């Protein structure tokens, strides 16, 4: 049913339609509305049977999810930012044990400095944790990806993270088509675990593995992610056949066929990019967009196939590996091995900085003219950066950086008169 609704609420409905049997979560912005919505659906009996468990922390949330998934229950949780970091140890255990938990990450920056706004630092910090990581471009895709995620997770017996931009998507009201329960039931069969804690047929899950087999167990996780490269597009096709729209898959292209420059990005910024690219095309610039829906497994071959005909690429990313540069860019460059393509990394939108069409126009035109530095921080305020660097050069006790910069921009909330 078509409705105008908040992204978080739409995701709560999609998760409920997937009939999870255990939901546990600890509130953290900007994810909170999702589990609040689910809590209401459990309480009023719409979602049943389902146990909603309030836990004392994110570490407990993932630990409970591991227990319930091992007991054979379809299990869901959601988090963001510091919450994801706090559960990190259990996140690795969930994938290491091969438990098909589905988790929403409402992407948000990581402190310090504390910041509640959107970027991709949180899920990128868990890039190597062994979970499948899917990114939603719109709230419709977020809804669709959650339904696909349960199917994908359970088919491969591995956990799936659905990443959606915090606030930009979670708090946006837009048109979303919520599928019917009958269609979701037909698409997503009941969970049939590969391993289960069952008193009538006892097993242990979580053995200690020494050097004799550890590498093999880890390799099998990789092998499953490689299988996911086939399973993800297949599930997206099945979804499209039943629900009549394309959502998910490994990658999605826009105006790339004759493009000389291809911009690569993840998540909701793809929409702004498409609008920008339309305007640049109207000016005769051959430019296109490559959206990466599946960041893990990283679709090396698919990315390579799209970029092969282009002359240069720009990776626009909301994440940043301090001391190196781009995170997504590193993977894209791996996909480009052996192809002589000029590439640029543009780090943008960190901590909620708005990514505007005007800035994209300027930056992409500089890339096309080859005047863009290889690593660019879009809309960086050099004035306050340089002031702080000067301060540090001139005095030993230069003070806390964040407070200094806030004072320089004139927006410090407290203790400045």
């Amino acid at each position, binding site marked *: 049913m078509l409705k*105008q609704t908040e992204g978080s609420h739409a995701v709560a409905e999609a998760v409920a339609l997937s009939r999870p049997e255990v939901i546990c979560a600890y509130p953290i912005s900007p994810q909170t509305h999702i589990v609040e919505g689910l809590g209401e659906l459990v309480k009023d009996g719409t979602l049943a049977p389902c146990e909603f468990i309030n836990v004392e922390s994110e570490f407990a949330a993932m630990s409970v999810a591991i227990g319930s998934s091992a007991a054979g229950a379809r299990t869901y949780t959601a988090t963001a930012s510091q919450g994801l970091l706090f559960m990190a140890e259990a996140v690795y255990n969930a994938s290491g044990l091969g438990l098909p938990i589905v988790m929403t990450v409402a992407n948000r920056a990581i402190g310090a400095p504390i910041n509640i706004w959107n970027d991709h630092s949180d899920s990128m910090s868990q890039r190597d944790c062994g979970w499948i990581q899917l990114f939603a471009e719109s709230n419709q895709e977020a809804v669709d990806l959650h339904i696909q995620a349960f199917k994908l997770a359970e088919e491969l017996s591995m956990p799936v993270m659905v990443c959606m931009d915090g606030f930009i998507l979670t708090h*946006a*009201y*837009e*048109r979303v088509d919520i599928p019917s329960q009958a269609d979701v039931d037909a698409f997503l069969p009941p969970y049939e675990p590969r391993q289960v804690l069952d008193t009538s047929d006892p097993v242990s899950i979580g053995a200690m593995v020494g050097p004799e087999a550890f590498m093999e167990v880890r390799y099998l996780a990789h092998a499953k992610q490689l299988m996911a490269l086939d399973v993800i597009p297949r599930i997206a096709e099945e979804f499209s056949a039943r629900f009549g729209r394309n959502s998910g898959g490994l990658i999605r292209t826009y105006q790339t066929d004759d493009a000389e420059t291809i911009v690569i990005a993840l998540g*909701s910024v793809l*929409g*702004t990019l*498409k609008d920008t690219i339309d305007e640049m095309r109207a000016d005769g610039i051959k430019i296109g967009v490559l959206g990466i829906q599946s960041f893990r497994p990283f679709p090396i071959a698919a990315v390579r196939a799209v970029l092969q005909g282009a002359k240069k690429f720009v990776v626009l990313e909301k994440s940043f590996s301090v001391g190196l540069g781009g995170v997504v860019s590193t993977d894209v460059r791996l996909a480009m091995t052996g192809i002589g393509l000029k590439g640029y990394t543009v780090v943008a939108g960190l901590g909620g900085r708005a990514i505007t069409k005007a800035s994209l126009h300027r930056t992409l035109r500089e890339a096309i003219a080859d005047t863009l530095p290889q690593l660019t921080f879009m809309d960086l305020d050099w004035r306050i950066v340089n002031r702080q660097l000067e301060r540090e050069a001139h005095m030993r006790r230069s003070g806390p950086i964040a407070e200094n910069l806030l004072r320089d921009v004139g927006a410090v909330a407290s203790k400045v008169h």
Partner: protein
Amino acid sequence: MLSIAAFVQGRHAQAFPSFGSERTGAPVVAFCRIDDKEIRLREPILAPDVLIVQDPTLLHQVDVFQGLQPDGFVLINTKRTFDDLGLADISSRYRHERLTTVPATEIAMKHIGRPLPNAVLLGGFAALSGLITLDAVAHAIRDKFSGKVAEGNVAAASEAFDYVKRQMEELAHA
């Protein structure tokens, strides 16, 4: 609720808040785009066609008119006039028949008993912009609230609609 009203009329709409410290009394901004095709753009609205000011005490603290289109519409929640508010300068820069005020807080007190001007202002917005109908506003209010709260807000929005309509007619003849 504005985006829901637009949706009710078959249009595409995208509404999102400015994200900040959600403490009572902190200045906040929310945005809404309405279009006939899918809205892909995710940047904040930098050049609005319509500006609604819920709290007139912000007028001299924040440049709320920044980026407003030259032929833009303005609706301010106040009992006072633009000149009384010290906005004579603004009046001269924009089309005067599109600069309106409505005592939304007072109207809310009368119908809802609480100083919550939001839904009331939507009634005024419908009259001012013509982008949504009063029926669609009522539909959106009933989508969000029920019972006495919904009906109080619908009545308040309707009073604001009439108030702004009348004011626009007066401004057109002024």
